[in-house]
């Protein structure tokens, strides 16, 4: 789907604020991939993520009048989604039986393959072009779930969904400084977790100091 032009989006928001469900549904269609993606990466369960995503959009429609133009609508939506996801996570922590769902139907983490079969690099050996195997994806997801909720949220929003620091600060209702420090700590922590499985990490990684990584 094409990116919504800003004025087109503003019109849809205005109509939604007057109760137009059809207009809001167009917004949903545009934002549901990032909403679902965010919630899934926060929770690690496809079905639960679907439920929470649906609830997030319902809550967003109820609260649409509180959205003030000028702020990022995407950040506003993701604030609702990430809050609901974090709330769900905390509730599940109190009843651990539910969290076992995350580990059903998955390969054991000890079935190591060779490095070459776990990740492939693109033609230039560029790290961004990794194609991650299912196993490696699962390990990263588990590493994410080991992070404290706030670090996990910034990592998902920044490194997975590509939001800017400003948008993340809006989504988490906090300052840029806090966002920076959570991101750095989250990355460091995840790095440490992945080190424990370093046999699985792609071999073809090259250090380049002059590399510009977006």
């Amino acid at each position, binding site marked *: 789907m094409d990116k919504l032009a800003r004025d087109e989006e503003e019109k849809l928001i205005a109509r939604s604020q007057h*109760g137009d469900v059809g207009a809001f549904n167009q917004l949903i269609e545009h934002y549901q991939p990032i909403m679902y993606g965010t919630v899934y990466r926060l929770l690690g369960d496809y079905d639960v993520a679907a439920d929470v995503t649906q609830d997030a959009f319902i809550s967003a429609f109820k609260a649409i009048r509180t959205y003030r133009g000028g702020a990022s609508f995407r950040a506003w939506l993701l604030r609702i989604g990430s809050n609901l996801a974090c709330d769900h996570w905390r509730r599940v922590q109190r009843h651990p039986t539910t969290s076992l769902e995350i580990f059903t139907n998955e390969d054991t983490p000890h079935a190591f393959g060779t490095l070459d079969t776990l990740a492939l690099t693109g033609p230039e050996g560029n*790290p961004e072009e990794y194609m991650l195997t299912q196993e490696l994806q699962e390990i990263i997801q588990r590493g994410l779930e080991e992070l404290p909720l706030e670090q996990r949220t910034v990592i998902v929003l920044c490194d997975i969904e590509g939001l800017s620091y400003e948008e993340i600060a809006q989504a988490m209702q906090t300052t840029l400084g806090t966002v920076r420090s959570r991101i750095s700590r989250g990355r460091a922590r995840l790095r440490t977790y992945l080190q424990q499985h370093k046999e699985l990490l792609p071999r073809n990684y090259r250090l380049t100091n002059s590399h510009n990584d977006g």
Partner: protein
Amino acid sequence: MSQFDQHLTIEQLSTLLDDQPYAAAQVGTYRAHLQTCEPCQSEFAELRQTVSLLRALPQPALPRSFVLPADFSLAPDELENEPTQTIASDIPRPIALAHRRRHPSNPERRRTLWATMRIVSSLVATIGLFLSLSGLLSGIASIHLGGTATSASSTANNGTGKNGALITPEATKATPVTSSHNQPAISTQSNTIPPRASSNPVKSSPPPWPTILLFDLNTSGGRFGLGILLVVLGSMGFSLFKQRTRSRSHTHN
């Protein structure tokens, strides 16, 4: 300040990975340090790889569309007009969602139960209020009328019927004045006398009341005490059942 004397912090290294305008000035300094510091290079490489792996994670496929039904509508009071932390408190739905599939009516039943208990509590409190008022008023009335009554009943012990006659002529008629049993005798007898005691408003009252929970409802003190107890219980119950429904929807981030 020279960055070459000390290693870069995790936060500084992390900054190098993002193109953030705020850090443009410092980025040059950090890179310069990296050129010559191997431990920092190694740490930077690991962080960089971590971020690369995260960026390479695929977007999960949408299991379905999340659009709302065309006839979806909110009651006027459901639309929020205030900037809010109430977004988080809209959570009765997500909480119930997990349970909803298995026990669809539980939240509803429980809400009705809490509502009923609230009503019962407020009734209890109201009854208690009336009881205590009744006790209080008759207590006040008896203080006015029967300051003499108490002194009369204590002096009646001494065998003089004179003061006793001020309150209950019937009592003294009915009971020969004896020394130690007069007080209880008089009060008991005066309670059974009411139909005959037309001149005594304090004692002319409805038929005898029972004793509940050690509170003798025949006495104003007993009524007052029980009344206060019921008011307290009723208010506690009311606020207790009120809070429960709120805390159900109360979440925090």
